[in-house]
Structures are given as structure tokens and as C-alpha cells.
């Protein structure tokens, strides 16, 4: 009987080949010529900058849109569609001289009137755009002549330029705004070096070179952004040659990718300042000695070395990342000293076995769970009883953002505060200003310091950079001393690129920039 079935066995083999091989591997090089595929961690959520709240969308938009000012490769503020500006009336009036010869992707000219249409849209309450509170100090704008725009402020705003460069105040063509109305989100029409081609959600977003671009014409013809949420798959796509660039790259893959002769790995200190807010509504953290003890109890250098493979910087000199404008190293704080921690806890009358509830947004930040577990271990070593509560991000941000009833339920809550303005104003105020307790913003420690409040107000109200830096220095020093947070680390942001891609880089805000890239094959 067996022999008779030998032919069936053959059919089996043929069918196997058919069912797999029918699709004959026709892997087309998706990239090639001067087109580039960039694998990102998420798809765009929105294509209207003024309505956008997430980093992946902002990174995609940045190739299509421009604002009055922007950032260069070294994260310096540079003029974009403004050529120059002057301040008058004690910093309450800003007169913008606009660039000539700038065209939107639909052929419309960018001028003062186009800028005004955009500002009016951003500031109109009825539109509910995210520019509203960012530009709360802007009273309005007027057209002086075709290339001159006058902006009136309710009060001087030291962070105005950074806020304008903060990735939301980017211009859409007035004609497109009128044509598409609320659907402008699906029809991005900016002045940037690349123009929109198509968006197939969860699959790809493609842009092509804009031939009418006013600045240096891009070398690339086309960029395709491909969302690949699973980090291992993102890396595999790059290694397989299906993508030309990928970011972010998981820490554990960096060593292997560095050994790949076809790839370049690049990294930069990110703006993310990972920390645990210590809830000062709770009795245990009302005493500054306890908050300091918690900081002494945790070995940040070991966390950097063992959890981040060295790819992070410990936050021992300031609560914020060195890339935030206004950063100052204000000392060297809280070197690992468990004995001192125990001493402080004893002096503060904290009994061994005191229970603390620690909240972690599982999977939101690089190595967040590992860091949480390490911190819990260190705190147990000095006598605390730690209960870890993990939540997915949507639940987490909903719960920590709630109005406390009457006090927030956590003792420690993990967060990393990274702001698109890259400026100390919102970079510090969002988490330390006493008027920014939840639900207003993310002062999750319920911290209130007159020194900090005054310093942040002073920094905001002057347009003198030196004075601003001085004011933020005062605030950072006070915050480090008061320890409303368990200060942890700023992880590096890592990207990897094919070697032939020139002029590409990663930025602290979290993204790979390929718009200036050239291919050298």
C-alpha cells in the first residue's frame, strides 16, 4: 500500500511548494533611485500641525511644513519663513519681515496675509486647536504690508520664538484651508521641501520633492514613512534592506547594528527626563528629607549602566535634559548613598515597612518597567514596602491627569516630560509650576514653591536670553534641592541608517531627520 501513496507524497510536496512558492519571491526594492523608506514607531495621527499632539506626526509634518522660525541640525533656532524680526513696546510688539518668493505646494504665495489667515485660525477658540493655549499671550496679528506682519502680545513672552518653532505654528495655504475646511487634516499644503502625495493609514505616507521650494532643493525625490510599531520588526526591515532608515532603535540591538558594515547607528541625548513624581499630598512625602532620602537610595549610575547599556545620562545636575534650552548644571546632587538615605528617613521618623504605591505606564518609555522594578528594589533596601501598579498608557495618562479626589492615589508616578518647544518655559512649568497641578497640567508631585513660581514667571516675562537663563537656573537649583521628583535619567534617542545615506541625523525631541539626505551609492 505504501508504494501507492508515494505519488500522494509527491503531490504533497508540490502543493507545499505551490502554496508558498506561488507567490514567487518578487521582493521589489521599495527604495532605490533617490527615494528613501524610513521605518517609524507609529503612523501619523494627524496632518494638521495645529491639531497635532504626538511626536511621530510632528516628525512627518516637518518635511512638508514650515513656520516663521525653526530648528537647525544642532537644535539652534533659525529663521524659516521670517527673514528677521524686531521687538518694540517693551517686547509687546513683534514686527516680522517675511521671506519673499515662498510658494505653498498649491502654488499660492506665502505673504503676510497668508500668515494672518493662519494665525487667526490658530487663535480662534471655536476651532479648538492646540495652538490656543500655546499662544495665549498673543493678542492678534495685523498685515502691515505684503511682507510685514505685526504681532501684538498681551504681555512680553520670553519663550515666544521657541513656541513658534514648537512644531504647531506651521503654515497651511489659505486657499487649501478655504477649500478643505475641517478636512485640511487630510490635505496638508505647506511650504516645506517636500509635498504630500498619499497617506494609506497604517501602511505608508509618501511625500515627493517640491520643485518650487524656496530654499536648497532636496536631493531626495521621495520619502516614504512606514509605521512599524514592533521594534524587532523595525530593525529587521532595516537589516533586510526593506527600509533605509529606522528610528527609534531598541537598546539591545545597538551592539549588533554597530557591527553591521552596511549601517550607521546615530544617537543623541533625548529631551525625555524620566522621573518619578513624589506625591506631596501624601504625608510621607511632605517632608523634604524623605524625598531626598528616596533620591539618595537609588543608584542612577547603575541604572544607566545595567538597564540602558550606558545609553542614557543620569539626571544628577538638573531635573531636565541637557538639550532643553535654558538647561543649567546647578550642582551634583544625590550621589548613591543608601546609608545617608536611611539616616534621613530615621530623622524624618519614617518607620521601616512604610508602604508606597508606585505607578508605571508599562511600555510607554524606553525600559520603563525595568527601571521601575530596579527603583522598587532600591527603595525596599532602605526599608520601604513597595507596591508596583502597571497600566497601559491610555489608562495611565487618564488617571494621573484627573483632578485629585481629594488626593491622588499614587505615592510615586513615573513620567518623562518632553516638550516640542524645547524651551525651559513649558519644559519646567508643565511639571513644576504650582498652578499646573492635575488636571491643568502634569505637576504630578503637587509641588508648590514660591521661588520656582517666581523664577518661571520672570523667565517668561523677559525677552533677554541671559536673564531668562539666570531665572531658569534659580528654578532648577531650587527644584533639585526640594526633590519633588526622584530624578532618574534622560535616555538616548537612537536611529540607524544605511551607510549610503548622507546628511541624516536624529534629534533630541525623538525622530530621525532625512529631509536633507543625499544618497551616495
Amino acid at each position, binding site marked *: 500500500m505504501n508504494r501507492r501513496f508515494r505519488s500522494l507524497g509527491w503531490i504533497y510536496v508540490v502543493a507545499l511548494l505551490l502554496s508558498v512558492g506561488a507567490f514567487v519571491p518578487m521582493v521589489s526594492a*521599495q527604495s532605490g533611485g533617490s527615494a528613501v523608506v524610513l521605518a517609524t514607531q507609529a503612523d501619523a495621527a494627524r496632518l494638521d500641525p495645529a491639531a497635532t499632539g504626538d511626536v511621530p506626526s510632528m516628525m512627518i509634518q516637518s518635511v512638508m511644513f514650515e513656520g516663521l522660525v525653526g530648528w537647525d541640525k544642532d537644535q539652534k533656532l533659525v529663521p524659516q519663513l521670517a527673514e528677521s524680526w524686531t521687538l518694540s513696546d517693551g517686547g509687546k510688539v513683534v514686527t516680522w519681515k517675511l521671506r519673499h518668493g515662498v510658494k505653498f505646494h498649491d502654488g499660492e504665495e506665502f505673504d503676510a496675509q497668508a500668515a494672518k489667515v493662519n494665525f487667526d485660525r490658530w487663535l480662534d477658540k471655536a476651532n*479648538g486647536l492646540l495652538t490656543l493655549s500655546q499662544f495665549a499671550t498673543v493678542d492678534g496679528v495685523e498685515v502691515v504690508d505684503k511682507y510685514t506682519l505685526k504681532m501684538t502680545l498681551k504681555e512680553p513672552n520670553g519663550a515666544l520664538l521657541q513656541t513658534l518653532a514648537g512644531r504647531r505654528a506651521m503654515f497651511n495655504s489659505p486657499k487649501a484651508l478655504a477649500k478643505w475646511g475641517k478636512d485640511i487634516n487630510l490635505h496638508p499644503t505647506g511650504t516645506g521641501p517636500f509635498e504630500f502625495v498619499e497617506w494609506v493609514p497604517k501602511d505608508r505616507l509618501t511625500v515627493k520633492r517640491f520643485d518650487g521650494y524656496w530654499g536648497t532643493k532636496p536631493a531626495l525625490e521621495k520619502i516614504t514613512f512606514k509605521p512599524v*510599531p514592533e521594534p524587532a*520588526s523595525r530593525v529587521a526591515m532595516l537589516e533586510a534592506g526593506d527600509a533605509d532608515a529606522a528610528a527609534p532603535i531598541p537598546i539591545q540591538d545597538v551592539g549588533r547594528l554597530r557591527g553591521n558594515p552596511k549601517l550607521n547607528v546615530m544617537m543623541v541625548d533625548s529631551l525625555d527626563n524620566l522621573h518619578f513624581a513624589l506625591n506631596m499630598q501624601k504625608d510621607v512625602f511632605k517632608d523634604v528629607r524623605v524625598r531626598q532620602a528616596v533620591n539618595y537610595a537609588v543608584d542612577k549610575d547603575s541604572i544607566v549602566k545595567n538597564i540602558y547599556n550606558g545609553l542614557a545620562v543620569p539626571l544628577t545636575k538638573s531635573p531636565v535634559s541637557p538639550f532643553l534650552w535654558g538647561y543649567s548644571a546647578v550642582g551634583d546632587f544625590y550621589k548613591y548613598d543608601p546609608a545617608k538615605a536611611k539616616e534621613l528617613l530615621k530623622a524624618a521618623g519614617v518607620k521601616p515597612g512604610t508602604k508606597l504605591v508606585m505607578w508605571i505606564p508599562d511600555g510607554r518609555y524606553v525600559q520603563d518597567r525595568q527601571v521601575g522594578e530596579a527603583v522598587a528594589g532600591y527603595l525596599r533596601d532602605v526599608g520601604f514596602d513597595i507596591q508596583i501598579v502597571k497600566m497601559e498608557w491610555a489608562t495611565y495618562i487618564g488617571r494621573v491627569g484627573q483632578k485629585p479626589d481629594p488626593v491622588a492615589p499614587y505615592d510615586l508616578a513615573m513620567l518623562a516630560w518632553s516638550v516640542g518647544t524645547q524651551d525651559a518655559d513649558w519644559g519646567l512649568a508643565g511639571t513644576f509650576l504650582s498652578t499646573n497641578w492635575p488636571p491643568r497640567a502634569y505637576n504630578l508631585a503637587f509641588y508648590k514653591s514660591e521661588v520656582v513660581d517666581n523664577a518661571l514667571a520672570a523667565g517668561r516675562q523677559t525677552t533677554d536670553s541671559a536673564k531668562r537663563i539666570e531665572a531658569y537656573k534659580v528654578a532648577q537649583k531650587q527644584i533639585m534641592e526640594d526633590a519633588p521628583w526622584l530624578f532618574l535619567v534622560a535616555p538616548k534617542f537612537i536611529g540607524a541608517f544605511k551607510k549610503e545615506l548622507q546628511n541624516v541625523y536624529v534629534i533630541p525631541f525623538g525622530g530621525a531627520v532625512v529631509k536633507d539626505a543625499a544618497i551616495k551609492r
Partner: protein
Amino acid sequence: MGRLIGRRLLFLLPVLFGILLAVFVTMRIVPGDPARLVAGPDAGPEELATIRQQFGLDRPLHVQFERYVLDILRGEFGRSLKTQRPVLDEIVPRLGNTALLAVLSTLFAVIVGLLAGIVAAARRNSAFDHATMVVAMLGVSTPSFYLGIVLIVVFAVMLRLFPAGGSGGLAHLVLPAVTLGASTLGIVARMTRASMIDVLDEDYIRTARAKGVRERLIVARHALRNALLPVIAVVALQFGFVLAGSVLVETVFSFPGIGWLIVESISMRDFPVVQGSILLVTFVSVVVNLAADILYGYADPRVKY
């Protein structure tokens, strides 16, 4: 048969309504504020309030539900809170992608599984039989997440035969379809083998052999048809698992399907997309099961509806 289809379709309405209510309520019970997730960290309370108002989330729950049901009856599924695109524009292309993936993976599993099972049964206790059963066991027990990564590393990174992920052509479907079909393949192979062995021992097969009917004909015509019955039932049931399994497979292969869309929409609390997707997936599952029942009737004339 017509009555069966009519009755089943009528039954579909309360099922869909029940699912809709359950998803609607669940999504609103779990903590998480879509406005905050969409707006990001620097939105102020005024902006959040405006966004909630735009989404209609400031209205009482029963009003929101009533509006939603009435909209659906008009064929209007709303707009995604995240992308602001019409929900059907988000769902339909992705449901099509997943359906294609599910059908291909099921085809792969059934063709290969059936043949492997038949040959294994006919060559019982041979090396081929043992090897097939070990592979089938591996297929059933290997997590698709792991299998997917292994296939990517071997076939995309090392051999460069297939793309590592994304969509764009049949080549993009091979690795995901194999990953997704692996467990069904294992089950089908084992079921077919067991069922064939039972049937091949039946009296009517012995009679056929005694009559001198050729062995190939016995297996292909007499045994297989009877052995297929449990397999059809299993494949239909498995189809639901295939749809569920697509969640992981689509994530690993960045394949733009409905599974990935649902997971992401849940994590963004994008209510209209979650509701619409689950409604459509439920509809498809019920219809596929109905089709399997009809098919079963054809394969087994004893089954009457």
C-alpha cells in the same frame, strides 16, 4: 436551506446590537480620555474641553449611544477621533487586507494540512508520519509572535527571499500567511490523520478493498469525503481564531490589517473606530460560520436543516 439562512441572518441582528452595546459600554468604562491622548501633554483644559465637545463626548452616555445607533442605521459610522477620517475609510481597506491574509493562511493550512494528514494516515507509523506529526505539533504550539520573528530573520534578513514587513503585493503576504496559518495547519493535519485512520478501518472500506477497488480511489473518494466532515467544522471554528491571531501577526509584520487597527484604536480610545471594527468583524465571523454550516450540509447529505 433558505429558512436556515433567513433564521441565521435574523439572529444576527440581536447579536450585532448586543456586541455594539457591550463594546460601547466597555470602551467608556475603562479609564482613559481620548481628548487627552489625541491632544498630547501640552494641551490645556480649555482645549481638552473643546475637543471633547467636538467629539460629542460631553453629552450624557445614553444620548451618545442613541445618536450612534441612529447614525449606524443611516450607514454613518462617524469619524476617527485620532485621524478625523471617516471610520469606514479606516476600516474597510484594512478589513479587506485581513480577509485576504486570513483566506490565504487558511488555504495554505488546509491544502498542506490535508495532504500531510492523508499521507501520514496512509503511511501510518512511517518516518513521514512521525515527522509530519512532530511538525504539526510544533505548528500548533509555537506562538505566532515568535514564529513570525524567526521567519523574518531567516527569510527576510538572511535569505532576502521575502520582505520583512509591510504590504504591497503577494510577496508581502507569504510570511504573514504562513505564520498565521501554522497553527491551523497543525490542527488540520492531526485531525485529518486521525479521522482518516478511523475511516480507513471502517467496514465499507474493507468491502471496497474486497471488491478490488483501487486503493487510490478508496482513499480519494470513499475515505476522504467522510474524513473531511470534522475537518470542515474545525476549519470554520479556526477562522475566528485566525482573525484573532491576525492581531499579533499584523503587528509583527506591520501588515495594515484590522487586528492592528483595533489594538491601536483601543489604546488610543478611538471609540468610533473600535466600535465600527468590532461590529464588522462580528458580522464577518457570523457569516463565515453560516457558510461553513451550509458547506457541511453539502459534504454530509445526512445533515438536514
